[in-house]
């Protein structure tokens, strides 16, 4: 009997459990998955909670419901990984041995990394929307807010879903306009990047969008601390930005168990081969999604594309053959742009997001790097796709490898 251990039952871990449970012989393989909690959140939904589109109960399901029956599910934190002994010690001190392991422990926000962020004003005038609690508190706050200056600050890169901060501002513009109080609300993006986004073409296009919607940008701002009394954020080089409401995207880090095991980089992300998804320094271990140190986006679509590569390479690896599939960095993100419209970007390691049309049989085409209603409905439809097709490891009509079809160069 060979033992596959999957750490993390989020998007990546759940997809792999489903794909591999169907592919590996039940007489020969035991599959175990470990996660700290019983709840599986549809993370893209957090963005829509502050504006009342979703409530938290609309975006959470029981984790086990999406895992195959043959898979042994353990709900526990992880203490550490011992790669030499090929074992994992859980928070309750139980020890699990493995022959092969997939690490999909994800990334989470760490507001405590920023001096002065988590004081008595946290949840009153300072919020996050990357957690159920944070998104919910912001929703409650917006209901009675009379207006003022809302600053959205990205602490440092990388972050999960790098377009979410922009979407948040677009949706805020739309939300406060519909409430008839847009003239009482100032919206500002304060970012460590040199512009609205990272890559030149999309940074320019998204920058123009922000400008058109009356959202100002403070670039190259690296936050050192928050001064809650003066209601300002201060950068390492002593620049200051004042706020009435601070929406923070705090530092994103990999799981603390990775740090305890001495396996990660300075943000607890695991060095991973960017094409094969094998862990660089660990034997018989693959890494998936946000837990990796890959220079691809930390996003669900990326995990989905990676899962197809990982699946193929896993089957080769267990038979002693070299990996055959190569991940190209493909990412595909709907961007909510407000007023029931959306954009779509599609890119990989080598090709930056470009304008054009994205063909999708039966549904598309979607508009690339431009606004349309179908993009917005694509995003809303995706929640159904996530629970019913994506997590279950079903085929989606979109290739893991990026295509240039429809893109204007």
């Amino acid at each position, binding site marked *: 009997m060979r033992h596959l251990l999957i750490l993390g039952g989020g998007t990546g871990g759940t997809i792999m459990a489903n794909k591999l449970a169907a592919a590996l012989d039940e007489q020969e393989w035991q599959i175990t998955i470990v996660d700290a909690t019983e709840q599986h959140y549809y993370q893209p939904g957090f963005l829509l909670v502050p504006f009342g589109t979703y409530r938290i109960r609309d975006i959470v399901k029981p984790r086990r419901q999406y895992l195959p029956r043959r898979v042994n599910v353990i709900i526990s934190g992880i203490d550490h990984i011992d790669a030499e002994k090929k074992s994992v010690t859980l928070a309750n001190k139980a020890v699990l041995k493995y022959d092969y392991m997939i690490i999909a422990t994800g990334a989470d926000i760490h507001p405590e990394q920023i001096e002065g962020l988590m004081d008595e004003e946290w949840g009153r005038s300072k919020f996050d929307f990357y957690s159920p609690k944070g998104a919910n508190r912001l929703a409650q706050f917006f209901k009675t807010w009379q207006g003022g200056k809302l600053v959205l600050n990205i602490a*440092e890169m*990388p972050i999960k879903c790098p377009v979410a901060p922009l979407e948040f501002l677009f949706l805020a513009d739309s939300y406060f306009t519909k409430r008839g109080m847009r003239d009482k609300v100032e919206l500002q993006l304060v970012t460590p990047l*040199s512009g609205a986004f990272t890559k030149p073409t999309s940074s320019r296009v998204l920058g123009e969008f922000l400008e058109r919607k009356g959202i100002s940008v403070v670039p190259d701002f690296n936050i050192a601390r928050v001064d809650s009394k003066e209601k300002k954020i201060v950068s390492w*080089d002593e620049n200051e930005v004042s706020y009435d409401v601070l929406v923070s995207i705090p530092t994103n880090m990999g799981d603390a168990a990775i740090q305890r095991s001495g396996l990660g980089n*300075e943000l607890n992300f695991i060095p991973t081969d960017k094409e094969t998804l094998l862990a660089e320094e660990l034997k018989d271990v693959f890494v998936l999604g946000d837990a990796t140190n890959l220079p691809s986006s930390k996003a669900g679509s990326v995990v989905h594309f990676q899962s197809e590569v990982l699946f193929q390479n896993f089957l080769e690896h267990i038979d002693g053959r070299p990996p055959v599939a190569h991940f190209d960095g493909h990412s595909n993100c709907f961007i909510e742009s407000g007023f029931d419209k959306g954009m779509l970007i599609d*890119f990989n390691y080598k090709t930056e997001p470009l304008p054009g049309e994205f063909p999708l049989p039966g549904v598309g085409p979607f508009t690339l790097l431009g606004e349309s209603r179908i993009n917005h409905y694509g995003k809303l439809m995706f929640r159904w796709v996530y629970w019913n097709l994506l997590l279950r490891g079903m085929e989606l009509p979109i290739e893991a490898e990026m295509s240039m079809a429809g893109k204007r160069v």
Partner: protein
Amino acid sequence: MATMTIGTKTLALDADGNLANMNDWNEEVARELAVQEGITELTPQHWAVINFMRQVFAKEGDAPSIRRLTKESGVDTKTLYQLFPKGPAKKAAKIAGLPKPKGCI
């Protein structure tokens, strides 16, 4: 393609304005790149950061982040920003003759 001139030599630059060929780099080039970034004098502390960045790049193929610089180069974050105002990682990489750090998309 953009270029920079140093003495009688013309060096190619990439789209970010960093050296296109790392082998073109030497200490004189570093001093010239520093001036372009508004740093008139490279102190021993500057050089400690620059050399650390080059070491990491030679080993790993990417320049280190600010967080890692703080953790491993022996220079704290506050000082890093005084040495290389605005973006220490980006600026130090440029002066060190390395491509812009990949960071993330």
